[in-house]
Structures are given as C-alpha cells and as structure tokens.
C-alpha cells in the first residue's frame, strides 16, 4: 500500500475495532490476512514473537485471577499485528508528507519530522538490539531477565544520546520551528480496495448479526 493517509486510517479504525470488541478483532485479523502479506511481516519483524509470548503470559494470569484473559490476548495480538504491518509498510519521509498535509507547515511539519525521527530510531534500535545480543552471546551471557536489564539500559542510553546529538546539530544548523514542504501522495487501486474493505469489516463487526440475517423474531 502506497498512500500513507489510507494506511494510517486503516490502522486506526482496525485497531479501534479490535480494541473494543472481539468481533472487531476478528474482522481486523481477516483484513490483516488478506491485505498485509502476513508471512512477509512476520519474517521481517521476528521480535513480534517474544512480544506475543509476553501478551499470552499476562493473559493467562488475567484468566486465572479474574477472567477475560483470552479475549484480551486475542485483541492485543491483533492490534500488535496491525502495528507490525504499519511499520513494515513505512517508507522513509512519508510521515513528513502526512504531518504537513494534516496540520500545515508549522505544527504538521514538526509532528511529521518527529514521527520520522522516531521511526529512524526504531530501525537503529532493532539493529542495536541484534548486535547487543550477539555481543552477549559471545561473552557467554544467557538470554533472560538478567541480560534484559543491561540491554535496555544500553538501548535507552544510546537513543537519548542520539536524540541529544540530533537536537544540537539541528540547533547549530539554525533550525527553530516549522518548515516549508509540499506533501505528495500516490494512491493505488489496492489502497482504495484495502481502505473500503477495512471500513466494511469495521461496520460489520459493530452491527449485530441479526441486522444482517433476518431469521425470525
């Protein structure tokens, strides 16, 4: 999908639907299976599997302590999958287009730029994470809670330092606020179909089944 506006819209309505009802979550999952190239997404972002395990773990605790864990895990996993799809489809610079299109040259430009920088940080974080794991393995450190703490510290520290450097560089280069930018978008038939299908799925998930199938009253 090429149009970031449609992609963000789809992700927002499908995530909302999945969050509020289990029917919405199933509808969002069907959409994800049809439109997101599921295997490509799962292959590209393998970090999704430990997160799914974590969600399942907390769901089991919820189920044991008060119930509702199963529905929670289904909804959260589907929201996660939608997020992963959105991340995989991201093209460098498109949030700047989207931000400026939505809110103009000042706030929109800044929001778009912030989003772009955040996405860039995510890419760096994922490569840093991989190298930290490799370095720890070479050192004979086993992957677990104890190794998670130093990993987290290094990642957070590195991200903060890079953000600090970027802010200083921008200030040195004379950046104060906003900027001029002409947003451009490419909309394909797949974007339109995906958007319409997502809308239909959400509507269906919120309308009771009896409204569609007139059985007997």
């Amino acid at each position, binding site marked *: 999908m090429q149009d970031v506006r449609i992609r963000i819209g789809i992700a927002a309505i499908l995530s909302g639907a999945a969050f509020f009802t289990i029917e919405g979550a199933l509808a969002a999952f069907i959409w994800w299976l049809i439109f997101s190239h599921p295997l490509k997404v799962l292959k590209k972002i393998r970090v999704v599997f430990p997160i799914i395990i974590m969600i399942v773990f907390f769901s089991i605790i919820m189920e044991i302590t008060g119930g509702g864990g199963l529905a929670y895990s289904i909804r959260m996993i589907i929201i996660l999958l939608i997020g992963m799809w959105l991340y995989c489809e991201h093209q460098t610079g498109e949030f700047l287009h989207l931000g400026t299109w939505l809110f103009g040259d000042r706030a929109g430009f800044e929001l778009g730029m912030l989003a772009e920088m955040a996405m860039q940080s995510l890419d760096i974080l994922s490569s*840093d994470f991989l*190298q*930290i794991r*490799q*370095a*720890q393995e*070479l*050192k004979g*450190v086993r992957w677990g809670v104890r*190794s998670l703490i*130093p990993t987290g*510290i*290094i990642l957070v*520290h*590195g991200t903060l330092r890079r953000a600090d450097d970027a802010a200083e560089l921008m200030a040195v280069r004379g950046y104060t606020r906003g900027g001029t930018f002409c947003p451009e978008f490419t909309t394909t038939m797949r974007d339109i179909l995906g958007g319409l299908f997502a809308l239909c799925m959400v509507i269906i998930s919120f309308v009771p089944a009896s409204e569609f199938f007139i059985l007997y009253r």
Partner: protein
Amino acid sequence: MAVQDVKIVLTDVQAARKNWSLTAQGTLYEGTHLISGAVGSGKSTLALMLAGLFPPVSGQIKREDVSTLMVSFQYPEYHITGTTLEEECSSWGLDPFSVLTAANLTGKKTENPIKLSRGELKMLLLACVLAGNYDLLILDEPFSSLDCYGKERICKRLSERSRGITVIFTHEQTIFPRIDRIWEIRNGELCDRGGLPEALRHWYYAPKVIKNLISAGKIPKNITPGDLLEAACRT
C-alpha cells in the same frame, strides 16, 4: 598434545545487502591479518560472517580447530553487561585490577561503564578482549575513538599475542601492530595481498606514508611505527 592447525577457509563466499555485495575467497592461517577497505565496503559484515554471526548468501566459511572466538564490535557499548567497571571486568572472568590498569582506568572501578567516554570504553573493551586467549579474535575498527597513546598500547598488546588467528578490520592510517598478512576489500571483492613486506607493493589502500616509502625504494619490513621509522631513516 596435538598441534592445532587453526584456520578459516572461505570458499566462494557471497554476501549481499541492499545495493551492496561482497565476494570472498581464501584461507586465513594462524597469525595477524589486516583487512582494509573503504567506508561502506563491507568490513563489518565480513567480520560478522567470519565469526558466524551473519550468514553468507552462498558459499561456505569453515573455521577449522577454532574452539574459542571473540569479536570486538565497533561500538564498545554493545558488550556492556556490568553496572560498574569492576563488575564489567568480572563479567569477562577477569581480574578487575589488571584489566583496569591495562586500560589506564585505575581509580574508576566503581564508575558506571555507560558514563565513560567512547574512547575510554573502547580501551576497557579491548583490554578485556585482549586478556582472553582466543583461537579466533576478530577486531572491528579497534582503533576508532582512540588517541595515539591508546592505539600504541593496543598495538603493543596485539603484537604480543602469540597464538591463534587475529583479524583486524580497519581503515586506520597511522598506527598498526605487527601484521602477517594484508587483505583488502576492493570493488566488492576480498583480495589477498599476501604476506609482508611483499604485500605492501600491492596494497591499494595503503597509508600515504607507506606509499611514499615504497616509491622512494625504502620498503619497510612491517608496518609498525618502529618499522616505518627504520625504513624512513634508511639511507
């Protein structure tokens, strides 16, 4: 006790990333190997491949009789697992006092490694790595962030390594340890320039000082600062 024949054999190795590819062929025997190349030529990727941390697209990398290996990554913070320098040294199974002395960090044992400067952290990492007795030691840009004094200390320690394979990936141009063989990555291919001093004649990315010495007919025996000085003073 059987004599080990440690070597790495690269057979038709190919690596590829976005808009970039690398082919490699050859054998790295016991000794110190220098692999140079331009920025972005694939030195770090090749380092990971030699360590078995990045799979080649095709071909085979065989590490024969290598039972212990270590990689020093370009960014030293990746290796940190301790919250103090003392703890960090212990996490490598080493005596903190001797490592901190080697890294010129005595008196900082209670400091958090993350608070050190990049150069200090690099010295600490290299001191930890070089204290180990690995069959295969891969150093990715070991001299980056170090001052001349730090580079000289590291080169001295590297020259003292008596066994195993040491592979140094660098674009360093001034201070080197004693090297046995020079390789370089050029036009997407790993080229074996041979043993020293013969390799210096074919070394494309050779530092200017070495190129000047060769053009003046003064071929240094090796590339340590002492060897270069000896060649320069030769009449």
